[in-house]
């Protein structure tokens, strides 16, 4: 039991923190397109220090950072309230998949444009009828000469409007058992068979898109891994993504609890013991989430792979966000109804936290089946 950082990790953190203090570009412009271009610039800046391809091996332009360094990066960039790089999905998921499962040509073709944000990536896994039950996805890829013809619909696709490439899970064998018939391929978004429609959320903004795919073409050379191996190619990246995100999420929550404390004081509610107890309970919950995440990270560092215990922090994250935004409403009292880009927005946004990235119900199934060994419902 030793939570101190290694000297090299400490050095990495200090260097990163100092660099962020000098280079943090701030929140950037309003407007989604302007914001996106701003983040593209920011990615260039990050990549000058090899912070964009943080986890990538040096031979592909990365920094070869350890899991611990990746976690530190997530924490620090959040702490600094610095923006995320534009091509975040390519950096965190697409690139690592190509590196792990791609061939030499694919590496040569795809990696560099991810790093320099000249080609943006999005992820095409979820479908309208395949949410929690992702493996039931229906988008079909039919073999044709030189490649595949793809037809189907994807949903919750962030960055699709900017993306050149989609990480696509499609069904290449409709007769195989459901996980086995899937393949992982890289779809060119800039072709007539691909239509992107923004999906407006209850918050009013559009973080996500629907993508309608009709007879779009994927050449053979864009298949990653073997035909029928798409599930295992795609799913491992999701676990690493979660482990990396947990600590950054805990930092965000800490910041928001700090803002909530400010709100409580400003509203003169800091003498109200009911509010204080609710706030204290949230902080306790947030601290245990942070510590659970550290424990999970520590385990992942030793075993090489994040465990199903990560579902705990995911459940906690949603619960805490929902609880803290509800408390903020009660603190605002008679002003709670007013549209408010901070707390009003967050209240609504938090409702999705128990759905996105695997519902809390699915996370509880994972804990029950994979950690506790309880029987799966058949």
């Amino acid at each position, binding site marked *: 039991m030793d939570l101190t950082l290694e000297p090299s990790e400490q050095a990495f953190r200090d260097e990163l923190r100092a660099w962020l203090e000098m280079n943090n570009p701030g929140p950037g412009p309003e407007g989604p397109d302007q914001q996106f271009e701003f983040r593209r610039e920011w990615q260039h800046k990050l990549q000058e220090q090899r912070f964009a391809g943080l986890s990538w091996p040096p031979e592909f332009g990365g920094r070869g950072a350890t899991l611990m360094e990746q976690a530190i990066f997530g924490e620090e960039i959040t702490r600094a309230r610095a923006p995320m790089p534009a091509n975040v999905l390519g950096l965190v998921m697409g690139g690592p998949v190509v590196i792990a499962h791609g061939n030499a040509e694919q590496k040569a073709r795809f990696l560099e444009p991810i790093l320099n944000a000249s080609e943006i990536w999005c992820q095409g896994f979820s479908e309208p009828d395949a949410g*929690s039950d992702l493996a039931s996805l229906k988008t079909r890829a039919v073999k044709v000469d030189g490649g595949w013809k793809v037809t189907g619909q994807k949903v919750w696709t962030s960055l699709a409007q900017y993306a050149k490439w989609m990480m696509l899970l499609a069904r290449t064998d409709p007769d195989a058992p459901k996980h086995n018939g899937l393949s992982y391929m890289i779809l060119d978004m800039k072709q007539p068979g691909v239509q992107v429609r923004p999906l407006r959320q209850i918050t009013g903004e559009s973080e996500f898109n629907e993508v309608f795919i009709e007879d779009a073409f994927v050449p053979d050379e864009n298949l990653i891994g073997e035909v029928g191996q798409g599930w295992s190619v795609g799913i491992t990246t999701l676990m690493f993504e979660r482990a990396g995100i947990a600590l950054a999420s805990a930092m965000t929550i800490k910041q928001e609890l700090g803002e909530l404390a400010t709100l409580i004081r400003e509203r003169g509610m800091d003498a109200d013991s009911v509010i204080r107890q609710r706030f204290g309970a949230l902080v306790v919950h947030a601290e245990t989430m942070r510590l659970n995440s550290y424990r999970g990270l520590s385990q992942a560092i030793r075993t090489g792979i994040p465990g199903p215990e990560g579902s705990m922090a995911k459940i906690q994250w949603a619960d805490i966000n929902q609880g803290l935004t509800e408390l903020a*409403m009660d603190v605002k009292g*008679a002003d709670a109804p007013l549209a408010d880009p901070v707390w009003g927005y967050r209240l609504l946004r938090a409702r999705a936290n128990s759905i996105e990235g695997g519902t809390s119900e699915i996370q509880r199934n994972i804990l029950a089946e994979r950690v506790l060994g309880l029987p799966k419902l058949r």
Partner: protein
Amino acid sequence: MRFDLSDEQKAIQSAARDFLGTRYDIRKVRELAETGNYDVSIWGEIADLGWTGLAIADEFGGQGLGMVELAVVLEEFGYALAPSPFLSNAAAGLLLQRAGSAAQKQRWLPAMASGKATATLGVLDGKGRALVPDAGIASVIILVDGQAARLVEGPVDKSTRVETLDLTRHYYPVEGEDGELLEGDVSGGMDLAEVALAAELVGVSQRAMEMAVEYAKVRTQFGRPIGAYQAVSHRCSTMLLETESARSATLYAAWAADSHPEAAPMAASVAKVAAADAGWHVTASALQVHGGIGFTWEHDLHLLLKRAKVDGHIFGSVSAHRERVAELSGLPSLVPEGVQGL
């Protein structure tokens, strides 16, 4: 004893469900919400149906029916999520009738009963401001400040409308200093207003629950309708429990207001707390049942969710009513009067 609507009350309920279901079809509701309008023509029809004067006494040109009948209609307005000043007008009418002077009542209630004038109601916060629904179209604005209330003539300038979470109702900030005092039973009148609000919230909860249950029957994942999984079905059971509890509390509070006045204050606070809690819990829970689709603007659920959240913060606060329930149930307040207040 009959803890259920009478045949006559059921007829009112059914008429309201039919009328509002056609006039405020959810596409219409969405259209009005997104354009920021009410539909004035429907208001005329509502007045013609006599609902604007439902609980206003005969002598003022109303139907002289009771709080139960009004609650029945209000639940349907909530169920339909009608963008309409019906709630604010009804609540103000209840307060005016209970606490107004003879002259005030004579001046305003007949016009309200006929639908020619509308009134509204706001509760002042610590800084002498109130967020008042529909103040931009109301001829009368009643501002409540603790145990006192004042009447000012409206409407306020429509351009002062502020954006709230709830797209289906229009709010205006109003400063409250002047105005004629209402010299009667303001506290009793506010209890009626809270019951009216609770009735609307019951309707909102009912609608959200029905949407969730319907979806749980047809949405299939892992080879089963999701409603067959206890994570979903027990969630729906809890929604039922909260909605029915709020309904029981509201019907009882409405009945007590009409027929059992000594129980009315406690009953009103219980209804307020139960309905405000149910409103948020049930709509948020319905969103969870729907998963991602429930988080989209295109889906209608968010309109209910937002109405429920805002309804939970207008009139008195839920915690103040919970405090009042404690006070009326064996824990007399130790705080000097006036410091707390609803």
